[in-house]
């Protein structure tokens, strides 16, 4: 057992967990931030993507204890005072989701993509940068459009 302390969506948290607790488990089960999803549990699908210290990472492939002292941003932390983040708005307006299971991971990856590569993203780049995110519903077409649109708005 260990006590893990970190900032999550701007708030300081401190939780007692088993050492083997994954970051995604701490977020979902201890902090009840269930927007982050467990899709494959084999580090492939990206439904668990959050930002740790400003970088997109797969929270199912990281121990909560490894995030000690870090700043974590989840999908719940994107909206500003009830107003959707431009990337969230873009997904909404471009029909970039169907069941929505992959969507938080897609959006967190998209925001990270823009932070690294800027707001003008061509289709090939977006598709390449989405290699770590899988969607079973949409065929990615509108996800790519949403990301290009959201990127331009950021």
């Amino acid at each position, binding site marked *: 057992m260990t006590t893990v302390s970190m900032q999550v969506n701007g708030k300081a948290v401190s939780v007692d967990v088993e050492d083997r607790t*994954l970051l995604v488990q701490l977020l979902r089960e201890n902090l009840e931030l269930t927007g982050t999803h467990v899709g494959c549990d084999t580090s492939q699908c990206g439904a668990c993507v959050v930002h740790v210290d400003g970088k997109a990472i797969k929270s199912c492939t990281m121990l909560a204890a490894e995030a000690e002292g870090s700043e974590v941003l989840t999908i719940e932390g994107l909206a500003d005072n009830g107003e959707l983040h431009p990337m969230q708005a873009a997904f909404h307006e471009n029909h970039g989701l169907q069941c929505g299971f992959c969507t938080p991971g897609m959006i967190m990856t998209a925001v990270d993509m823009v932070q690294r590569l800027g707001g003008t993203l061509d289709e090939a780049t977006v598709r390449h940068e989405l290699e770590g995110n899988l969607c079973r519903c949409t065929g990615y077409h509108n996800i790519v459009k949403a990301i290009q649109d959201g990127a331009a708005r950021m």
Partner: protein
Amino acid sequence: MYETQYHRAKDVADAAALFSGASDASYLAGGQTLIPTMKQRLAAPSDLVGITHLADLKGISGGKEMVTIGAAVTHAEVATSDAVKNAIPALAVLASKIGDPAVRHRGTIGGSLANNDPAADYPAGALGLGAIIHTDKRTIGAEDFFQGLFSTTLEEGELITKIAFPVPAKAAYMKFANPASRYAMAGVFVARMGDGNIRVAVTGAGQQGVFRSEPIEKALSTSWNAEALDELAIDTEMMLSDLHGSAEYRANLVKVMAKRAVAAIG
């Protein structure tokens, strides 16, 4: 995964002490291989010694002859490093092809080399350039480092601290990635060193992990162009055959990737 005890090391010496003090420890760098392995219960170390935050294992320094990369430097950092892109762009390209963006934010070069996955990319870069692996105990040349599937000559508890890559005259890395896993089905690193020496290292295709291809090196030494490899028959005896591809398929991929690498170098 089974329960374990996680320790955050204070420095390299502390890491080694934590390791030897445990009954069955593993070093935890980026965790992009170890955590999934533990989740599947294929590994169950009693203790994890976290090292990926250690300043002593970070940093990239580039010179005219050598580029030195700290063991805990992430793939994303190598892929975007000006020092690497200027001196050995092929190495930056190699790092940029590992896994996916999120994996590259955590995965480290030290972890990749210490793990020696037969389909990992870094072993091809290290063997292709004749890298020198520095540990907390000694230095090991790439020729003497890789021992086969998931096996290296690192001793129990030995920790990679940094890796020094000789700067080539020209190099390229071409990879045929498995469409689902993104691992190399054949990844070929071709380097023309400053002294004219040609080195060709292949990952993903061999039964024993990364290997140097003497036939390809010899053909290219005689005639430096992609066509020189046209008549070459890659030995299928040592090629990996599995559900993703037959030995013959991989042997052909090796040739195609080698030709593309040579063409890219020009």
